[in-house]
């Protein structure tokens, strides 16, 4: 074998090694986070961690249910606020905006995605929290689900908007022509033909947004108050639920990991395992939807 053939082979092996490094990293992440959490699972029991709401490391109580509820609530709030805006933005970009307007709005959406989460957090602390505090309800500190949901809605907007826009654009042009030829208006075509055809891609975008929302950390710490309670309405009005403070799974890890030792530290890794599991489920479902859609496109 000539020298250059040997070089050719060697390079191939090196490239192969780097190709499987991703596998190794994913396995290593799973392995190390789970390994560090074993102490908590075995010493406290799965039920004590997953189904208890009391988190008092000083008393050896490590229930993370309050944080699960907190993460889900703030994600729900962000979806409620963010999805209509993101979908509207996607429809606008894909179907309505003239190209000159597109060339302003699309970079704006991209830039929203690039802004560091601490900057959003700072904005939330300085502008949103004092605004929310003006809502006159006893016990409203300004920090809580509402401020966090607003911040999070802005942060997931680019994810949902760009995936949804791609999905809408992927709808074949002749669907639109057909609909318009039958006398439907442009808006009827969008709502009755284009959106249903791009539905699965749009749903995938929303689910990816959910994944991002569940994983956001620093901006949440800065505006949500971090109290270890299951959020509940502050007064008789159920809407005041969103004025309640809360803590997310991510916040629990970030705020306490540097302070923790022993079982406490292990319980934080257990929090990480739960978060990891949640995100894997969410992302896997988004992926299977996207893949299903590609399959349908191919079949067509």
């Amino acid at each position: 074998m000539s020298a250059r053939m040997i070089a050719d082979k060697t390079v191939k092996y090196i490239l192969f090694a780097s190709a499987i490094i991703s596998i190794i990293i994913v396995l290593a992440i799973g392995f190390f986070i789970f390994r560090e959490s074993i102490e908590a699972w075995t010493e406290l029991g799965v039920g004590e961690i997953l189904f208890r709401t009391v988190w008092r490391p000083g008393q050896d109580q490590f229930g993370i249910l309050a944080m699960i509820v907190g993460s889900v609530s703030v994600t729900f709030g962000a979806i409620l606020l963010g999805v209509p805006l993101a979908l509207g933005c996607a429809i606008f970009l894909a179907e309505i905006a003239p190209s000159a307007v597109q060339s302003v709005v699309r970079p704006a959406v991209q830039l929203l995605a690039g802004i560091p989460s601490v900057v959003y957090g700072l904005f939330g602390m300085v502008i949103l929290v004092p605004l929310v505090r003006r809502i006159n309800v006893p016990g409203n500190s300004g920090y809580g689900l509402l401020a966090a949901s607003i911040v999070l809605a802005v942060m997931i907007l680019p994810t949902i908007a760009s995936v949804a826009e791609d999905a809408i654009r992927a709808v074949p042009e002749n669907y639109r022509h057909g609909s318009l030829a039958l006398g439907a208006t442009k808006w009827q075509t969008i709502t009755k033909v284009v959106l249903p055809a791009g539905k699965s891609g749009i749903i995938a975008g929303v689910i990816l947004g959910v994944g991002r929302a569940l994983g956001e950390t620093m901006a949440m710490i800065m505006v949500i108050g971090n109290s270890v309670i299951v959020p509940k309405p502050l007064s008789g009005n159920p809407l005041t639920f969103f004025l309640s403070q809360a803590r997310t799974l991510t916040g629990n890890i970030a705020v306490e990991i540097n302070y923790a030792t022993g079982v406490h530290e292990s319980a934080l890794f257990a929090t990480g395992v739960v978060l990891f599991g949640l995100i894997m489920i969410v992302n896997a479902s988004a992926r299977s939807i996207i893949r299903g859609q590609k399959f349908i496109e191919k079949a067509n």
Partner: protein
Amino acid sequence: MKSTKKNILLVVSLLLVAALVAACSAPSTPGAPAADPSADNATVTLSGSTTVQPLAEKLAEAFMTENTGLRIDVQGGGSSVGVKAAGQATSDIGMASREIKESELAEFPNLKIFVIARDGIAIVAHPDVPVSDLTVEQVRDIFSGKITNWKDLGGDDQNIIVVSREEGSGTRAAFEEMVMGEDALIAASAILQASNGAIRTTVSTTPYSIAYLSFGYLDDTVKSISIDGVAPTEPNAADGSYPIVRPLNMLTNGEPAGMVKAFLDFILSEAGQKLVVEDGYIPVK
């Protein structure tokens, strides 16, 4: 024949990956973070309590002007991390703003403890709160959630917003030990913040809030509240009339040597203790 070739490909690749991983981790073996502290261009690393951190930064800045070439890295993390870092020798000096627990001494029997200063814990509220004096019992009831409205304390008819430190914080541990006692727990609904600075920021910007704060962080953005008529000041804490006082500790793994010892000696010297007083803490000498 072909399959052996494939196996070789596989083995070689796995070896390469192993080599890569090893290359990534290689620097850990020779140096390790705790380098020889007596070398000329030495680095002394400190980590732990965020209460001690700013004081340590200040002491380090002063000490480094006298010892050019020396580098002192001060990192946060919290008291528990300080104990762990010193115990596992990942830092030269650990910082802790509470008493060292028996369980920790059992885990790390080599720990040497240096009390570098004493610190009072003040009760602080938003500047607009009219209440200026509380008893220890009242403070306990506020933080445990028994008293929830300022009107019960002579203030406005407004809910009290309790702000507290995280579990694992030395300030919280000291506060729980000296104020809350065995039975009372800090209410779960309290807003939690990860450092003294964050506590001060939150209290100064949130009307009707109350929290506890290290003396070193007191300033006019928050209102200090007297306990049983005694104001939280350094002289009151030094003469023992102010009740909530705890030690600030620095920890080493075994007897300190070289620059680590020199730095600790400096802290306990007259010049060092002067800086302690400047920051509002109580000197130990």
